[in-house]
């Protein structure tokens, strides 16, 4: 409950600095190949939203 209250008291800081983001950054920094993989997944998402979905919807 206290953590939740802390989050709502200062959400931007909590989102910007927490252990999960630190772990992700640390992992990606140690595994450069994974940056390429993650980038490809993000690219696939962008292409899906901007090309595939509009084409399917017509």
């Amino acid at each position, binding site marked *: 409950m206290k953590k939740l209250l802390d989050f709502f008291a200062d*959400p*931007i800081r909590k*989102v*910007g*600095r927490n252990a999960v*983001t630190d772990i992700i*950054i*640390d992992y*990606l*920094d*140690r595994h*450069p190949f994974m*940056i*390429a993989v*993650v*980038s*490809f997944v*993000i*690219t*696939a998402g*962008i*292409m899906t939203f901007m*090309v*595939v979905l509009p*084409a399917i919807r017509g």
Partner: protein
Amino acid sequence: MLFDIPVWKLILDTYIIWIIVFFVAKFLVKNKRVFNIALTGLFVALLWTLADRFDLPVSGPVLDVVMPLLPLAVIIIMAPDIRRALEMYWKKDVRKDTFVMGNERTKENIIDATVELSSKKTGALITIEKHNTLDQYSERAIQMNADVSKEVLVNIFTPLSPLHDGAVIIRGDRILCAGAYFILSDNQNFDKTMGSRHRAGLGISEVSDSMTIIVSEETGVISIAIEGIMLRINDKDKLAEYLNMFMK
């Protein structure tokens, strides 16, 4: 033809977007401070989407005004980091992707030097680099590129010597530079009795994943700054313990 677009165009488009996303992702991972700013921007964008989706009467129009300015603000804030990333992108990365931390001898030399400086009440600031490069600080300092040794470290911080006032940056087993100046921390909770050396050590720990050892000139007390936290070290064993954890 796929979705009324030639396949080659789709492939080229995907490739170009991939390159851009990859560059941005690599830039964010290498610059932790910028990563936090980017996350903040993403959070504000999420709020904007929510306000827009639910057609909120006040936050919607306010964020409609703020959001177009956000990319410009981010570019202005990040300008030095962006310029540096673009410069470094075409340079040989001196730190390489597989970085190396110092060996046992380096650790012992750092500990011995710190203890001696502490016993003599000689102020010292020793920063050990990890993943985030500290090139932007070392380039403006006095280049050393010397092996880490107790004698060199003690000599650098000897009062009245030209290099004693700034920080030493250690990369792996080498002293990269001496006389480096860091941006001071503006942490409001910081103990007001501590001087600018401690504030500088805390400042660099806030913007990078380095560890900084600080020896107080007044009391000889050893402190370490890591991840924006300052810890007071009581004895040599405790310092060795933290160094072993950090440099593994």
